[in-house]
C-alpha cells in the first residue's frame, strides 16, 4: 500500500522461536499480519534464538528506522533497555516484560488467570485426584501458569495432588508425549501445558489413554484432540498487538505497563463445548463465577 508519508510507519517482530508452533510465536506472527492488513503498514519478522541475536535484531530494526518493535518474550527486556537508549524514536514492546523504561514498555498477559480456570475445571473433573503439567522451559510465565493451574484445582478440590515436568525444549513433541505418559502413569488424568510445539505430544498422549483430558495453552487447541481437550487458556495476541500498534501509529502511545487479563478479553478461558457434558453444571457455574470475580478485581 502506497502511503504519502515522509517516514512510513513500520512494525517489526522478533520471536524467540519458530512461528509454526501453533501457540506463543504463531500468535505473535498472526498479530503482525493483522497489523499489516488492518493498518496497511510494512512489517518485518526475524527469528532470534540467542541473547546476542535478540539484541542485535532489536538494534538493527531500530537502526533501520522501524517505529514499533515487538520483542516477543521476557528475555527481550534487558536487550531492549540497552538498545532503546540509543534509539529514543522507536517504541519497544516486550511481551511478558517486566517494567517501563524510557520507550520500552511491557505487554503483560496474565495467562495464568485462564490457567487458574482450567485448573478449576480439572480439579472438579479429575477422578484420580492427580493433575499434571508439562512445561517447555521453566520461564516465569510458564511457572506462573503452572502454579495457577494447581491453585485453581485446589480451589475446587483441596485434596488434588499435582506433578510438573519440564522438557528443556520447545520443539520435541515426542519428548512431550513421553513426559505426559509418565504423568499419566503416576495417575494424572488432567493435563495442562505450556510447551509450545512440544506440547503436541501431550495431546497425543491424552488421545491414546482412555479417561485422560487435557487443557490447551496460548491458543484454542481443541482441534488438536477434540475428544480430549476440555478447554484452553488462550491469549488473543493479535488483538493486543493491533491495539498497541494503533496507539503508536496514532501518536497516542504512552509507555506504560499494559497488562491484559480476563477482563480485557485478550486472555480467555475457552471451553470446548463439544465436551460440555463432562463438566457438571455446578462446576461450570463455579468457574464462571470465579471468572467474573477475577474480571471484577482486574476491572478498571
Amino acid at each position, binding site marked *: 500500500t502506497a502511503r504519502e508519508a515522509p517516514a512510513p510507519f513500520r512494525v517489526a517482530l522478533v520471536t524467540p522461536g*519458530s512461528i509454526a508452533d501453533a501457540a506463543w510465536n504463531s500468535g505473535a506472527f498472526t498479530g503482525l499480519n493483522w497489523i499489516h492488513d488492518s493498518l496497511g503498514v510494512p512489517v518485518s519478522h526475524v527469528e532470534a534464538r540467542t541473547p546476542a541475536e535478540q539484541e542485535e535484531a532489536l538494534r538493527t530494526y531500530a537502526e533501520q528506522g522501524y517505529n514499533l518493535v515487538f520483542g516477543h518474550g521476557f528475555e527481550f527486556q534487558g536487550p531492549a533497555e540497552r538498545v532503546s537508549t540509543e534509539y529514543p524514536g522507536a517504541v519497544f514492546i516486550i511481551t511478558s516484560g517486566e517494567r517501563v523504561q524510557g520507550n520500552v514498555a511491557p505487554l503483560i498477559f496474565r495467562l495464568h488467570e485462564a490457567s487458574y480456570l482450567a485448573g478449576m475445571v480439572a480439579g472438579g473433573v479429575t477422578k484420580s485426584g492427580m493433575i499434571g503439567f508439562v512445561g517447555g522451559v521453566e520461564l516465569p510465565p510458564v511457572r506462573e501458569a503452572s502454579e495457577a493451574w494447581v491453585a485453581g484445582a485446589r480451589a475446587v478440590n483441596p485434596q488434588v495432588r499435582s*506433578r510438573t*515436568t519440564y522438557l528443556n525444549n520447545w520443539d520435541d513433541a515426542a519428548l512431550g508425549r513421553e*513426559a505426559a505418559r509418565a504423568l499419566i502413569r503416576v495417575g494424572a488424568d488432567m493435563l495442562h501445558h505450556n510447551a509450545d510445539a512440544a506440547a503436541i505430544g501431550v495431546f497425543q498422549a491424552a488421545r491414546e489413554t482412555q479417561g485422560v483430558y487435557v487443557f490447551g495453552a496460548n491458543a484454542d487447541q481443541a482441534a488438536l484432540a477434540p475428544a480430549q481437550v476440555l478447554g484452553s487458556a488462550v491469549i488473543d495476541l493479535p488483538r493486543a498487538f493491533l491495539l498497541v500498534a494503533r496507539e503508536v501509529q496514532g501518536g497516542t502511545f504512552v509507555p506504560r505497563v499494559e497488562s491484559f487479563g480476563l477482563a480485557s478479553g485478550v486472555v480467555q478461558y475457552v471451553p470446548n463445548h463439544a465436551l460440555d457434558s463432562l463438566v457438571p453444571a455446578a462446576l461450570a457455574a463455579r468457574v464462571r463465577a470465579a471468572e467474573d470475580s477475577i474480571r471484577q478485581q482486574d476491572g478498571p
Partner: protein
Amino acid sequence: MDPMAVAGDVLVAAVGIATPLALAATGEVLAERSGVVNLGIEGAMLFGALGGAIGATVAGSATGLGVGILAGVLVAALFAAVAIGAGADQIITGTAVTLASVGLTGTIYRQFYGPAGVGLSLPTLSPIPIPFLADLPLIGDALFAQPVTTYLMYILVPLVWYLLFRTRPGLAVRAVGEDPTAARAAGVSVRLTRAWAVLAGGALAGLAGATLVLAQVGTFTERMTAGRGFIAIAIVVLGRWNPVGAGLAALLFGLATALQFALQAAGLDVPYQFFLMLPYLLTLFALAGAVGRGQAPAALGKSEG
C-alpha cells in the same frame, strides 16, 4: 500403585523411545562401518518424519512409512553426492545437509499445511500384542505389545548385523571402512560401496523419523527430531559399531530417558535439571564401565580425494 506395573510401564516407554534411536543408529553403523560419518542423518530423520506425515495424510500409515524411508534415502543421496562423490569433508557436509533439511522440511510443511498450521493429527500405529509373549510378566508389554515399527526394528537390527558380518557385501563395507587401500587392492570399489552403505543408512534414518510421527506423536512439527540424529551417533559409538550393540545402547538410553520422566513425575524435590542430565550421565558411566572401549573403523571420516 503396583511397583511391578510401574516398572513395566517404564519399560514400555523405554522401548518406545529406543525404537527410532535404534533404527537410526543401526543405519549409521552401516555408514560408519564403511568409513563415513554421516551427521546428515539428523536431516534424514527429519525428512523421514515429514515424509511419514505427508504419506500418511495422503494414503495411510503404510504409505507413510514408505515415503519416510524414501525421503531419508533422498537426503542421504545428497550427502553422498557431496561427501563421497566430490570427496568433501564428511562432517561439514553432514552439518550442512542437516541445516538445509531443517529449513526444507519447515518450508515444505508450511506449503502443505499453512504457515502456522499445526492442526494435523494423524492416527498413530497402535500396539500389536504378540500372543503369549505379550503376557510375560514385566517385559511382556514392553517388548511384545508395541507398534509395528518396533517389530521392524527387531528384524532390522539383526538383519544389518548379519549383512555386515556374514555376507560378502558386508565384508566389502567393513573393508572399505577399515582400509580403503587394501579394499581397492582386493578389487572393491570404495566409493560405490560407501554410497550404498550411506543410502541404506539414510533409509533407516528415514524410517526412524517416520516412526516418530506414525508411532508416537501423530503429527509433524518443525525440528521435531531435536538432536536424535546426534544421539544416534553417540549410540553407535556406545554400541561399538555393532548393530546389536547399538540396539542395546539405544535401549539403555531409552530406559534412562523414561526413568528421567518417571522421576520427574514422581514429584521428588530435586531440581529437574538433574533428571535431565540423567540419561547422559548414565551413558558416561556405562562407557567408563568398559562398555565403550571399542575401536572405530580405521578409515572413519577420511574422505577419499
